[in-house]
């Protein structure tokens, strides 16, 4: 295995500034949103699981009830996962509909902050060439070797990180919010285009479930990669903002 520190000196002479031991990686808005959102999403998944248990059948179209044909019957959500742990739809809805506001306005605030501080433009923008098969394959191999950072530019996100974060921030969470709003009969009256966008209320409920499944999948992969990349450094950086560059100094 190549020693990254050693290779720095040999082929291309690097600028004299040595790579710093730690870099400032996560700005305050990112860190605040990350932790608020973590708690919010756990609560949304738990309370959503209770709500799903109330009618565990999913349909496509404008309507769907017991006499109609579901495309999927999700399994019963176990009590260790649900909020509250005993079945109480009224209380689950109280959790869900309050924290839905935190989720929605939290995302809005984070998006505005990340446009202003250029986090999106600088860190999440997928650049030409990153999606080229050669580059993707290179990053797959790097992942399999548990190397997640470009030694030349350790602060940059790799393409799979970018795609994962972009999917969550710009696709999955907005899909959760829009499909959730579509379930509201009052919002159907206020914004009828929601129903057109989702293809009906029963479809919106299915989209809500599929997007939630996507978020759960993201959480599993995200946690696994935090563990593989070094959990102390990764979690610490999301608290203090400062991230230790994993490669040892020569």
């Amino acid at each position, binding site marked *: 295995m190549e020693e990254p520190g050693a290779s720095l000196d040999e082929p291309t002479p690097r600028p004299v500034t040595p790579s710093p031991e730690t870099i400032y990686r996560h700005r305050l808005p990112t860190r605040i949103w990350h932790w608020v959102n973590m*708690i919010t999403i*756990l*609560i949304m998944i*738990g309370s959503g699981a209770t*709500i*799903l248990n*109330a*009618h565990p*059948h999913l349909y496509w179209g*404008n*309507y*769907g*009830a*017991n*006499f*109609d044909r579901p495309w999927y019957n999700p399994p019963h959500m176990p009590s*260790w*996962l*649900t*909020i*509250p*742990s*005993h079945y*109480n*739809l*009224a*209380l689950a*809805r*109280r*959790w869900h*509909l*309050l*924290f*839905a*506001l935190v989720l929605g306005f939290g995302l809005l605030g984070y998006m505005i902050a990340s446009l202003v501080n250029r986090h999106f433009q600088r860190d999440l923008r997928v650049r030409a060439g990153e999606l080229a098969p050669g580059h993707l394959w290179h990053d797959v191999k790097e992942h399999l070797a548990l190397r997640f950072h470009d030694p030349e530019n350790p602060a940059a996100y790799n393409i799979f990180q970018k795609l994962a974060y972009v999917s969550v921030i710009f696709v999955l969470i907005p899909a959760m919010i829009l499909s959730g709003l579509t*379930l*509201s*009969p*009052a*919002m*159907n*009256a*206020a*914004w*009828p285009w929601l*129903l057109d966008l989702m293809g009906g*209320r*029963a479809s919106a*409920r299915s989209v809500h479930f599929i997007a939630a499944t996507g978020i759960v999948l993201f959480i599993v992969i995200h*946690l696994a990669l935090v*563990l593989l990349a*070094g*959990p*102390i*450094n990764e*979690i610490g950086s999301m608290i203090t903002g400062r991230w230790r560059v994993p490669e040892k100094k020569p």
Partner: protein
Amino acid sequence: MSGIITRRAVLTTGALGAGLVLGGCDKIAEQPGFRKILFSGEKINQGLQRALSARTALAPEFRPDQMSPIFRTNGNRNPNTPDYNAMAGVQFAGWKLQVGGLVTRPLAISLAQLRAMPARTQITRHDCVEGWSAIGKWRGPLLGSILKLAGVRDTARFVVFTCADLMGGQPYYESIDLIDAFHPQTILALALNDAPLDVGHGAPVRLRVERQLGYKQAKYIMKIDAVASLDGIGKGKGGYWEDAIGYDWYAGI
């Protein structure tokens, strides 16, 4: 690379943390202070939804070919009290809808009189709080027309519906505010899918308040009262399910 022990410790801590968030939710939801915060979401959502929609914004209406093949029943499917059975036995011939409370002219309206009133027909979607939806065709006079006939006083803020079905020995009841009471789609439905309302769906008359969930659509309505406050009615939360379990009074979402 950190050692496996550290990693395991972190994994355990993470799992414990997630467990505490989920498990702690039961405990924290019992604290009166936090419960108040948790329940504040209702008013925030009501305020936002009302701010985002016109007072008379209409719920979506559908074409006949978009209707549910079967419109399921739910909740109480038959009040089955001696009084109700006697009324249903004669097709509600002697039944009269009582309209009172804070009105200038209390009314007692027979089913024939209700049927003779100008009626609105609407194919709308019924959304149960449990998550299912069904589309049906409802027909009946506007609640607003009846309230105008009775003359709602300025002090009234809510309309309360008292029903024939008993829940825990007490009549089921529900309430809405005057914005929804005078909404152009809020009707007292006498018919579903071109047939007189059957017992399962709320005969002789049920409420349709189309921008809210199913439990607000009171069935078996016997009495309508205009009131200034919901205090002192039932347990004061504005409806049976609101009182019994803590469902939101504003069921727009």
